[in-house]
């Protein structure tokens, strides 16, 4: 399973960012049999776009073959794209990345099914 986590500096010791489209980076991990295999940190170049950051990031993650996302909040457009691509979105804002992955593996993370307000992350990137 490939999981993308919205982060700031990125990596397993960073925290899960509260925002999705405007997150500074994404930490993408491969999980096999409950173990973290690969860790990749990608800078989110879409974060500084005028509009449509969430949509662009969703397209990017879907193209990368991600199966699940862990973030704090996600907007309506991004959630629509992710859900119709079959990507599950989980709430884990503020948790340590490592901790969030462990919780996901144990099935303890809440799935996000209702979007936050649009443009929530626009002025508060983190």
């Amino acid at each position, binding site marked *: 399973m490939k999981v993308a986590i919205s982060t700031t500096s990125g990596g397993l010791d960073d925290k899960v960012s509260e925002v999705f489209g405007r997150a500074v980076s994404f930490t993408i991990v491969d999980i096999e049999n409950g173990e973290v295999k690969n860790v990749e940190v990608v800078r989110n170049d*879409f974060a500084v*776009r*005028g*509009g*449509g*950051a969430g*949509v*662009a990031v*969703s*397209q990017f993650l*879907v193209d990368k073959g991600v199966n699940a996302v862990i973030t704090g909040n996600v907007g309506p*457009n991004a959630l*629509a*794209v992710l859900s*119709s*691509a079959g990507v599950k979105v989980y709430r884990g804002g503020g948790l340590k990345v490592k901790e969030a992955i462990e919780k996901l593996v144990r099935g303890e993370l809440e799935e996000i099914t209702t979007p936050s307000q649009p443009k929530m992350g626009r002025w508060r990137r983190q």
Partner: protein
Amino acid sequence: MRIAVASGKGGTGKTTLAVNLAYFNHIDLFDLDVEEPNCHIFVKGRREERTVYRKVPKVEESKCDYCGVCKDVCEYNAIVVLKDKIYVFQELCHSCGACSYFCPREAIEEVDKPIGKVVKVRSDINLTYGILEVGEATPVPLIREVKREIGSKAIIDCPPGNSCPMVESVRDSDFCILVCEPTPFSYHDVKIAMDVVKSLDVKFGVVINKYGLPFNIEDRLDAPILGKIPFKKEIAEKYSRGEILKGYEETFRDIYERVISL
């Protein structure tokens, strides 16, 4: 002469000045603050309106093979292509037409999306204004439509701020009146507005509204002062009732005289 009325800071008196300047000098009035037009509160009469559209893509899914060319050429992330699904986010689209132009299977057609209305009101003076649909990201295309109605003599009420909508509203006028009030906030913003109109090469002057408030703005501004509107409860009351400022005819005639003499 086309005279634009702008301010930087909102709430300094653009509409007060524009409406009364137009009314007491019998000039056609145009309200380009299409996100929140309010000149129509003061000019009531027979209305006619027309809808304004812009182009957005519509995908014929039976022709689409989800190749993704459209989303790659879209500068605004308005199209998402999944393995067997395509999404258009109309509110992100800037109507550039690239997706339809580059689609190798001619699966994208450009269709009209309403973005607002142009309204004309006939009264003692003529008022033309735009009103933007809720949810539209940019007012500029509608502002351009309203501007097409402007003749050689006009008073133009502009949007607040100093960004694209204000620039589009001011840029083709012959003169710009900047309305300010004696407050540090207005002083800060009107300086930016002065820089904007200077770089647009539009002649300008300043009108001080709410004159009498305890902040000396007139000595700080390096610009011709065209007139002053006093800080009076009576003016605020008339404005809030949607009335023309009868009794202050001379103030607005003098301002107009000074503009055309500059």
